[in-house]
Each structure stands twice: as C-alpha cells, then as structure tokens.
C-alpha cells in the first residue's frame, strides 16, 4: 500500500513539474513579440545584447518567476486555511486577508513609508495587514468556543468590503502621484521591476512551503477537529499560530508585489483534492506547483487576449474562481 501510494505521489509530482515547465516555456515564447521555442535556449546562451535577449531576461523570465512564487504562495495559503478551518471555501481572498494586505500596502504608498524604511515597507505592511485580518476573522467567528464557518466567511467578506472602502478613501484623499501608484498596483499585475521584491517573494514562498511541509501531519489531524487532533497528540494552538503566520506571510508578500489576485487559493486546492485526495503530505506541494502553473497560464492569457493591451491577471482568476466557488457551494459535502 505504501509503495503504491509513494509511486502515485511521485507520478503526480512529475506530471505537475512537466506542466510547470511547459507553462514556463510557453510564457517565455508567447507575447507581443513571438520567440520560437527552439530559439529560446540559443538566445539565452549566445544572444546577449539582442532585443530578444532583453525581452526574455528583462521582462518575461522575471514575470514567470513571480508567477511561480505568487501562484504557489496563494494556492498554498488557501490549502493551509482550508485545512485549519475545515472549509473548502476559505482562501486569502474570501477571508478578507488579501483585502487587509492591500490596505496595508496602500497606507505605505500614501504615507510614503517606502522612502523612510526602503522597499521592504511594502512586504512588511502587506504581511501586517494580512496577519491583522486573520486574527480578526478568527476571533470574531468563534462563538461559544466553536468556530462557525458561515460567520467566518461572512466576516471575511465584510472585512474585504471595509478594506476596499478604506482603500478608496485613501485614493480619494491622496495626491495624484500616489493615486497613480495605487491604481496601477491595485489592478494586479505580475510586472515587477524591483529585483529585491522579486527575491523576497521567492524566498518567502519557498520558506512557507518548507515550513508547511513540516506541519502536514498536524494538518491531517486537524481535519478531525481541534479536540480530536489534540487527542492524537497535536499541539493545536501552536500549530494554528504557526500556520496563521505562514498564511499571512504568503498572502502579504503576494499582495505587496502583485496586488489582489483572487481565488487562486480556492481553485487549485479544490482541483488538487479531487485529483490526489486530501492527504496534506502531497496536497501541500501539489497545490504549490499547480498554483504556479495556473498563474503562468492565466498571465499568458491576460497578456495576449486583447494584445497589444494587457488585462490584469486578477480579471481572469476572478472569473474562473467565482464560477468554481458557486460550483463548490453546490457540492453535498459543503455545509455552511
């Protein structure tokens, strides 16, 4: 049984990595300037100085790296939140965590915090906003010692509304320079010129993935409820604290770099659970890989569908995610 399971898991991982490689190569090749797949390696090795080389290295490759880190992060954050809350509908966006992070980043833009403490101001404020919202949603949804899923989702949606209203308020009172920055960033794009931010989001997502993997058994136990998990020897309070921090870190980093990209954390974990089952040992890593490929493909679509204009990638994920949300809501296992 174990051998069969390991074989199945390895096969899944190989397939997901192949999909990721195909998606990445397509991302390199497809765009307003088409670069044939066969030429890519040649250009990367020998084409220094050519226009194609700077398109690949300066624009497309960083974009793919960001898509991998952010798609993986958001999908992983969704998996962790769904595991902790035992609810397939929660994810960074539906719980208002993305909204909190975006409010944090807007405050940074308006109060020019980045000029005082450097570029790190964006991820830090995103993380702080995300963490604050998770804490609020969690404490507000506990009634009489039990977590009420419907209260939690509604609280999350309301916090999202409040956060976006506050963002609009900030936009209304801000200077036109800041306004441009906020609008540009809120649209949600994987275009990020700052190499430090790219590095931070990459390291952050990798750290989140590794730490989550250490908690995969605890997440499996939490599926039975907090009491039962504790009876199986899991320190539930500590585990939840760590996972809360990781989920806000992943969301905060993603939002500070790419704005709000909705529903990646809903679509991918749901799809992966259907394919590979609910064991977090494989679910965590396959959600990460799946989320990475998914966001690259959405980005290719967003870049090309009304070329030469670009759609914000959040538009694509929002449409797909909204439909998937309604579909999951109709499933018989989902009780609100």
């Amino acid at each position: 049984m174990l051998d069969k399971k390991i074989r199945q898991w390895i096969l899944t991982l190989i397939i997901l990595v192949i999909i990721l490689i195909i998606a990445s190569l397509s991302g390199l090749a497809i765009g307003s300037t088409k670069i044939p797949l066969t030429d890519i390696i040649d250009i990367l090795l020998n084409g220094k100085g050519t226009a194609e080389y700077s398109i690949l290295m300066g624009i497309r490759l960083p974009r793919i790296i960001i898509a991998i880190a952010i798609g993986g992060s958001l999908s992983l954050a969704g998996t962790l939140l769904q595991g902790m809350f035992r609810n397939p509908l929660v994810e960074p966006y539906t719980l208002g965590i993305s909204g909190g992070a975006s409010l944090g980043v807007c405050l940074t833009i308006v109060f020019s915090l980045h000029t005082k403490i450097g570029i790190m101001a964006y991820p830090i404020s995103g993380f702080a906003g995300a963490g604050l919202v998770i804490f609020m949603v969690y404490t507000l949804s506990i009634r009489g010692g039990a977590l009420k899923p419907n209260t939690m989702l509604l609280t999350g949606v309301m916090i999202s509304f409040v956060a976006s209203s506050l963002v609009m308020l900030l936009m209304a009172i801000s200077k036109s320079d800041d306004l441009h920055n906020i609008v540009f960033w809120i649209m949600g794009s994987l275009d990020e010129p700052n190499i430090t931010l790219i590095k931070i989001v990459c390291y952050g997502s990798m750290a989140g993935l590794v730490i989550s993997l250490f908690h995969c058994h605890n997440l499996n136990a939490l599926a039975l409820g907090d009491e039962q998990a504790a009876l199986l020897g899991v320190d539930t309070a500590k585990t939840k604290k760590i996972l809360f921090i990781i989920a806000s870190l992943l969301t905060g980093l993603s939002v500070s770099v790419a704005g709000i990209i909705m529903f990646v954390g809903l679509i991918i974990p749901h799809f992966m659970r259907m394919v590979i089952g609910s064991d977090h040992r494989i679910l965590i890593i396959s959600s990460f890989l799946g989320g990475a490929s998914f966001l690259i493909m959405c980005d290719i679509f967003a870049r090309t569908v009304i070329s030469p204009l670009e759609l914000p990638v959040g538009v694509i994920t929002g449409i797909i995610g909204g439909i998937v949300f309604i579909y999951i809501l109709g499933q018989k296992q989902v009780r609100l």
Partner: protein
Amino acid sequence: MRETTPNKTILEVKNLSCGYSKTNISILQNIDFTVSKGEMVSILGTNGSGKTTLLKTISSIISPAKGKILLQGEEIKNISLKERSTKTAVVMQFQNAAYMTVEEYILLGRLPYFKKFQFFETQKDIDLVHKYLELTNTMELKDVPFNEISGGEKQLVSIARALVQEPVLLLLDEPTSHLDISHQAQILNLINQMKEQLGIAVLIVLHDINLASEYSDTLILINKGTRTIQAKGKPEDVITEKLIKKVYNTDVYIKENPISSKPCVFLSKKENIVPMNQ
C-alpha cells in the same frame, strides 16, 4: 472473574470536580473511582448528568476544577500530549473527517507514534490499520470517503482508529447510541474482545442500562441531583429498583437475564392513566 489488584490499576480518579470553566459551576463533585487492566467500567446517568463532561475531563479536553486524575500512577497533566495519546484513545460521539478515506482516517491513529521529521508511515502502522479494518469488518470501506459511510460504520471505524493507537485506556462516549441492535452487539462484543485479549482498560458512557449491565464489570451510577456518584459496583449491586428509581425517578422492574444472569431493566406502560379532561 479477572483480578483487579492495585498494581493493575490503569486509571485512578481522586476526589475530582469537573465542569466547564466558563459557567464556574462544577457539574460533578467528589468523583472517586478506578479502572483496572482488562476491566470495563460503564458510566450511567440521566441526560445532562455530566457523563460526557466527566469523560472529557479524563481525556484532558477540559481541565478538572479540583482533584486528581492518575494514569498508570502518574498525574495525567504531567504527561506530555504526545505520550498521553499513545496511552489513551478516545472515541467521541460525533465524528467528522472532511474528505479523507476510511483508511486514511484510521491511519491518523498512528500519528502519536510518528517520530519527528517522519514523513511516511511504517509497515507496522499499515499492518495495524489493516488488522483493525479486518477486526471491525470494514475492510471493504477502506477507500470510501469517511463522510459517505453510515452512522454505525462511522462508529466502528472510529473505534478502529482508537485501537490502532494501541492504548492502555480506551474512553468511549455512547458508542452505541442511534444504532440498531446488530451494530450495538458488534461494537460491544469488539470492545469486550479487546479488553479480554489485550487487557485494555475501558471506560464507557452508556445510555442503555441493559447493555451496560450485560457487558460491564463495574457500573458507576451518577445522580444529577446530588451531582456525584450515587452507586458503583457490580451490575447486580447497582441495578436495583431502589437505586434506579432514585436516579432516574422512574418505576422499573428488574429481572435476571436467564442466560447471563445479569440484571435486566423493564419499563412498563402506566396502568392508571388519569383522564385528561378532569
């Protein structure tokens, strides 16, 4: 009859008061009893008398307000969470397990034995899971999602999960409620077999007095009015018309089961019904 000398004592409850801390009222007070190796002790009492609260306190879900709980002579609050879960296994009334299959669910019972950084289960873990899938007659359910099996099957599978924990003490909260008699018999016979063969100490909350009488070595009868133990001892000492009347405030007739010679409780319809209109 199995001997119950003090050195075989698994669980010792001393002068325990328990209740939910928020209400600040002890539901139960001055609770004293022991459970020995290979002994099955049943807790009986009316609805709301605190049977489940007592079980939750002993399984450390709720902290006791007063008194001590000793597991194999060591105070339970001093035993680490992980070690405790290799010694006690608990089957609560309502089980939920999201999307996992029955086999994955039972395998979680081996979690307390996983070493730090252990990623995969060992062959021993898998063998134990299969052994209890077979013992509980649930082998054919192993790949079915837990949430799609029936109530009786959920109970059986939950007991299998508790047994793969290889506990010395098994705590069960009404494992037979809402089940038909075939499932009731299957579950209690399984527990009886485990206690006989493996010497597991069993503490069980039961609603059905006759089932408790038939299967238990010792009964504990809780009185909701006095919030403490009304009587404890062998079934024939506890199940008397006087004690049952006192605790349940109901008239019953008690006869001996002709086969097991355990006491058996009968209700009877009231003969002298007062007309409603008078």
